[in-house]
């Protein structure tokens, strides 16, 4: 599959009423990359993510997933594509009436024809991969802490062994230890499963630690798309402002040393 970008966005311009969020936005993500989308609040990061995962149709432009156009895609083809990526939603979006194990089984049961025992075994393995203890299997989402919810949601996103993982603010609302563990998990999964990861995040530690490249959204387009070390030196005023806060400088100096 080398050569064809996993995600390719060309000239996308979503509209909410008369509000145009992007105009002619371009983005290309290669196999095995960890890419973050950053930008100020309201710059349309989450909207772009929702367009790529076929929840929202852009009013102009083209989006290709694994080389396939998703804008005019038919339902059967869309279903085939959905098997190949997993999504971690910002609030977890676990089904509140199902236990953690059942949550992970849902996509497996929908897309495969395996016996129930094996479904449960695979789901338990996904929980283990996401770093959940086995005794969390029977818990309901409301009995979980924030970090556990993210991990359970990660286990569900990994259920179908996706090649591509979308993470919407994976570390938001987590304590530093859980956030660090989640970053570690992303790196490990990429290492061992060869995943391509696309995440929306504000977490500077995650940006430095996990990403290969970072796309900066602003002025209704991608104003910079480079590894963190280069992006922070970008003279564009929006990017400079974003990375010129004391917090950003502290994170930068911490990771430059290592």
């Amino acid at each position, binding site marked *: 599959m080398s050569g064809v970008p996993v995600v390719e966005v060309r000239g996308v311009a979503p509209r909410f009423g008369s509000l145009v969020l992007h105009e002619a936005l371009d983005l290309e993500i290669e196999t095995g990359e960890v890419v973050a989308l950053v930008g100020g609040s309201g710059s349309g990061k989450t909207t772009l993510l929702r367009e790529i995962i076929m929840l929202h149709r852009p009013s102009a432009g083209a989006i290709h997933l694994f080389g396939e156009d998703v804008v005019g895609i038919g339902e059967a083809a869309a279903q085939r594509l959905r098997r190949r990526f997993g999504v971690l939603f910002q609030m977890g979006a676990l089904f509140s009436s199902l236990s953690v194990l059942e949550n992970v089984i849902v996509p497996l049961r929908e897309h495969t024809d395996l016996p129930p025992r*094996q479904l449960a075994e695979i789901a338990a393995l996904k929980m283990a991969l996401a770093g959940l203890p086995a005794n969390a299997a029977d818990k309901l989402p409301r009995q979980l802490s924030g970090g556990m919810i993210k991990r359970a949601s990660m286990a569900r996103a990994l259920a179908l062994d996706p090649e591509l993982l979308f993470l919407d603010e994976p570390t938001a609302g987590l304590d530093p230890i859980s956030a660090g563990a989640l970053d570690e998990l992303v790196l490990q999964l990429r290492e061992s499963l060869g995943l391509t990861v696309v995440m929306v995040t504000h977490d500077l530690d995650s940006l430095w630690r996990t990403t290969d490249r970072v796309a900066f959204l602003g002025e209704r387009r991608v104003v910079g798309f480079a590894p963190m070390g280069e992006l922070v030196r970008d003279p564009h005023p929006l990017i400079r402002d974003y990375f010129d806060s004391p917090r950003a400088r502290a994170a930068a100096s911490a990771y430059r040393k290592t």
Partner: protein
Amino acid sequence: MPHDQPTKLTALLRVDGPVARCDGNWTLHGIEGLARGWAAQRSVAAQVRAIDGSAIHALDTAGALLLLQLESAAGGRVDWEGFAPEDAALVELVRERRAAAGEPPPPTPPEGALARLGRLALERFEEMTGFLAFLGEAAMAMLRLLANPRRLRGRALLKGIEEAGANAMPIVGLLTFLIGVVTAYQGGQLLKTYGANIFIVDMVALTMVREMAPLIVAIIVAGRTGSAYTAQIGTMQVTEEIDALRTIGIQPMELLVLPKVVALLVALPLLTLFADVLSVMGGMLVARTLLDIGFVDFVERIPAVLSWRSLLVGVGKAPIFAVIIALVGCYQGFQVRGGADSVGRQTTVSVVQSIFLVIIVDAILVINFGSWGLR
């Protein structure tokens, strides 16, 4: 490695004496056939001493899991031969993670019949005391409101009356009209055989105004408005809006419950009067077409059979029903714990309980009206 292309190659397993040779795509979709036939393979697997992975085309975590299951079926000690380095690493990762997660806890034993009875009784008792506490709290808030009526939020109240009252008029009107038609039709057949046609007026007016109209209106409003109250407050509970109100210093009782109670106290009697008129009109229509009693004759007889007292007995039940519906709806909203499924469950409970209580209270009232001389 993740599958390169979703090819149709399935996973194959050939047991060759002590060597299990794996072939094809050991991926989530590739292993479907193999996993279904797994039980049959188990006995064969016991003699396996080595797993040969040199022919594996693609391996993912589901395939690695199946390989590890094969290993444990073989007794745990096998040689892994011919695996590509990345496949071997994946198998090791899966093995390591499964070990780290530990054993799943033993399933909890099912509850005995006696324990279940006790738990249900305790739950009912707690629910009852909880509702009584809520009732008391609401009554205190209502008293404070009466002492200082300007604290009532006027706009919220008017909006509530519009939503629960005016917007319910079409459905209430249509349904009670039809019930008037049905009652007159059923009773009219019988009266006709005795030539007592004119008594249709007594029957329709009394049944509708004293009993049916208040009850039907209360049931419709419980389903339409009581459920909405539960869902609204329940969702606010889930999103922590109720807690936010408390920390800001606004009593949820004052902001969310009292306007609803007062709105229904106004709307329900008015809806009941409206239903009285519509249901009697339904009866009139049948009386004219079936029993040859003209509209004028019908209306002229009404004052003779329907006393003011009867009208007040009917309409007077409406405020009582209003309080039941509003309080049960709000109380069940506050009982929501957790997420979306809890909102749905409490909404169901809210409608069932308020209709149940309305009918029970109605029965108690009807029996007591007799002894209070309100016949």
